[in-house]
C-alpha cells in the first residue's frame, strides 16, 4: 500500500501568511456574534475565549494545491497537498486570516490519491527532496505567477468573512491591512524555539523567521505569528493615525477628532501573548528588547492621552469662567 509510507514523515518546515485588518463594522462584535462570523463550518465549533481578552478562533478549512513552491534559488519544486486556513477575531475589532502549511523533507515522485492528502490536513509534500532553505526564503519573498500563493488563500478567506451579513462596512476609521509572512525551520525536539528575524518591509509587508522544535504544532506557530501580526498592525495603524492627525499643525479640536477612534477602538487591544502557546510566548522577549514593541506603544498611548488632556484645558477653563 502506498498510503502508510508518508505517514510518519516529519515536517522540516512550516510557512504561513497572516493578513490583519480592522473589522469593517461600526460596533465591535460581542462573543456570540464573533462565533457566528467565524463559523466557517456548520458542524464545527468556534473557539471563544473571554480571558484575558475576547478572542475567537475559527476551525481550519483546507485548500488543495498542486503547483510549484516559491524558492529563493529558482529551483523548480512541485508540491501537492492541502493548505490550512483559519481566522481569528480579537476583541470583536481586529480580524485576521492565516494560511499555512507544513512540509516534510521529501515526498514521493508520484501524486498520491487525493484522500491520502486530506487525512493529513495542512501538509504539503514536495516531489522528491525539499530544498529547505530555498523554500523557506521563497515563502518569505512570496510566490511568482503560478507558484503557491498563501496570500491568495488567506485573502480568499478574509473576503469570504467580509461578505458576512453581520458586517455593515461602516468602520469607525480607515486603516490599511498588513501582511505578515513567516517561515519556521524545524529543530529537534528539546531544542529551544527562537525568533531569528523580524523584518518590516514596505507596503505593509512584514516577514518573520523562526526556529521551532518538531513537536510544536504548526497551529501554535501560526498563533504566535498572528499575535505578532496583531500588535504590529496596532503600532502601524496608530502611527498612521497620529501622522494624519497632524498634531501640532492642525488646530486642536480637529486633531482630537482624528485621534478619537484610537481611544475608542484600539488602545485597549494591546496585550502581547494573550493567546500564544506557552512554549512560544517568550519569543516576544527579543522584540521587546529591540526595537521594543511595548515601549513604542506606551509612547504612542502617552502622546494621545497628553493631547487629549491639553485639549481639555480650554474647555475646563471655559467651564470655570462661565460659572
Amino acid at each position, binding site marked *: 500500500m502506498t498510503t502508510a509510507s508518508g505517514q510518519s514523515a516529519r515536517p522540516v518546515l512550516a510557512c504561513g501568511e497572516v493578513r490583519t485588518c480592522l473589522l469593517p463594522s461600526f460596533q465591535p462584535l460581542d462573543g456570540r456574534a464573533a462565533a457566528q462570523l467565524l463559523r466557517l463550518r456548520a458542524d464545527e465549533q468556534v473557539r471563544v475565549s473571554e480571558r484575558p481578552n475576547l478572542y475567537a478562533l475559527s476551525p481550519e478549512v483546507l485548500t488543495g494545491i498542486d503547483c510549484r513552491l516559491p524558492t529563493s534559488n529558482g529551483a523548480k519544486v512541485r508540491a501537492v497537498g492541502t493548505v490550512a486556513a483559519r481566522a481569528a477575531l480579537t476583541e470583536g475589532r481586529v480580524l485576521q486570516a492565516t494560511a499555512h502549511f507544513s512540509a516534510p523533507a521529501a515526498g514521493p515522485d508520484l501524486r498520491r490519491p487525493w484522500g491520502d492528502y486530506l487525512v493529513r*490536513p495542512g501538509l504539503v509534500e514536495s516531489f522528491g527532496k525539499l530544498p529547505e532553505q530555498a523554500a523557506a526564503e521563497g515563502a518569505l519573498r512570496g510566490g511568482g505567477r503560478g507558484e503557491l500563493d498563501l496570500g491568495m488563500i488567506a485573502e480568499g478567506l478574509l473576503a469570504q468573512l467580509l461578505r458576512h451579513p453581520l458586517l455593515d462596512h461602516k468602520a469607525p476609521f480607515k486603516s490599511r491591512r498588513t501582511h505578515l509572512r513567516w517561515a519556521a525551520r524545524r529543530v529537534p525536539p528539546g531544542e529551544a524555539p527562537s525568533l531569528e528575524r523580524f523584518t518590516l518591509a514596505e507596503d505593509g509587508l512584514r516577514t518573520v523567521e523562526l526556529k521551532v522544535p518538531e513537536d510544536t504544532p504548526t497551529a501554535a506557530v501560526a498563533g504566535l505569528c498572528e499575535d505578532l501580526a496583531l500588535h504590529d498592525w496596532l503600532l502601524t495603524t496608530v502611527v498612521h493615525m497620529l501622522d494624519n492627525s497632524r498634531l501640532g499643525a492642525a488646530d486642536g479640536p480637529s486633531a482630537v477628532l482624528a485621534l478619537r477612534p484610537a481611544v475608542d477602538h484600539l488602545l485597549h487591544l494591546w496585550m502581547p501573548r494573550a493567546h500564544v502557546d506557552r512554549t512560544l510566548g517568550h519569543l516576544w522577549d527579543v522584540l521587546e528588547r529591540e526595537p521594543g514593541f511595548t515601549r513604542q506603544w506606551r509612547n504612542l498611548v502617552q502622546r494621545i492621552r497628553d493631547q487629549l488632556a491639553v485639549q481639555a484645558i480650554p474647555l475646563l477653563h471655559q467651564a470655570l469662567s462661565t460659572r
Partner: protein
Amino acid sequence: MRDTVFRETTAEPRTQSVPLSHLSLELGHLYMEDFEAGPGRLREHFAEVRIWVDAARASAARRTGGKRPRISTCFLIDDYFTRFSTPAELVPVVLAEAEKAGLVIDYLARESGCAVADRIELAESVMHRLVESPPPGSYGSRPPVSQTGWLANGQRTPATRSALSDAKAWVPPQETAARNHSVFMDAELWSEKDGRRLWSCPFLAAVWQLARLGLLRHLGEPVLTPRPWDGAGFPPDWDRLPPLLQLNPAATPFSAYRTCTLMPNRFLAVEDAVRLILDQVDVDSGALKQVAERSAREGAEVPAAVAQRATYVFYEEPTNSLTTEGT
C-alpha cells in the same frame, strides 16, 4: 511543565468518541421498487447475501489475527426519493425474510436520516467539508472550472467560448490521478427543485459510509446515534421511525473501522461516485485520529485514506427483478 490553572471550556475543542466495531456489514441498500416486487424478491436477495456475509466475516477475522471480530449488520431503506407503504407493514417483512436466510439485522436506517437526522443537517455539513482534488497548476486560486453541485475526479472539458471566437478543437476532460489514460467521472451532488435541494443518491450514500465509519460529528458530538427498539411494533409513518434503530440489543457498535457493503451490481456506478466523494471529504480530524489510534491499538490499523476503508461485494441481481427495473 506546570499544568494550567485557568481553563475555559468554550476555548477548548473536544471531539467525543464513539464505540467502534471491527466491521460494519450492510446487508442491503434497497429502494422502494425492490420492496414493490414482493417478499419473493427480498428472499432472493437475502439468499444471495447470505453467501457473501460468510465471506466477509471470514475476511474480517483474518484481519483481527484470529480474535473474534466485532461485526455489526445494518440495513438501509430508502424513504428519501420515494415513499412506499409504512414501517409497520414493511419492516416486519424485511426482518422475517432476513431471518429465514439465517441473517440478523442489528441496525435499521432510513435514507432520509443521511440528509437530516435529529434536526441536524448531515448532508449539508458534509458538503461544506468537500475539498476538491486540485488539478496540477492549482496554486491557491479558486478552481476555475469548479461547478456548483458537481464533483469530478479531474478537469472538465472547458466550456466553449462565444461563437465569434475561432473554432476550437475539442479538449478532452482529464482525470487528475490518471495512469496513462483517463477515466473521467463527474458526479452530481444535488439538484434544486422548487427552491428545495434534493441530495443525490451517491451523496447520501457517502454520508452513510461516513456514519458507519464513525467519522461524523456535530460540534464534537456524535450524530446519527442508534436509538434502542422497544420490541413493540413499528410506527405507521416513516417520519416517526428513528433515523437509526438498534433492533438487536446484543449487537456490537454500529460504527466500525471498516465497512463492507453487499449490493446488486447495478449500484456499481453509484458506489464509484461514493468513493469519488469520500476521497474529497475533509472529515473531522478529531474523529479521524480517534479511529486511527484505536484501530492501531487493536492491531487492526485502518488505511489512511477514508475511501479505502469501504469495501463492496456486487452480486448478480435475481433475474425476475430485471423486468420491473427502470434504473
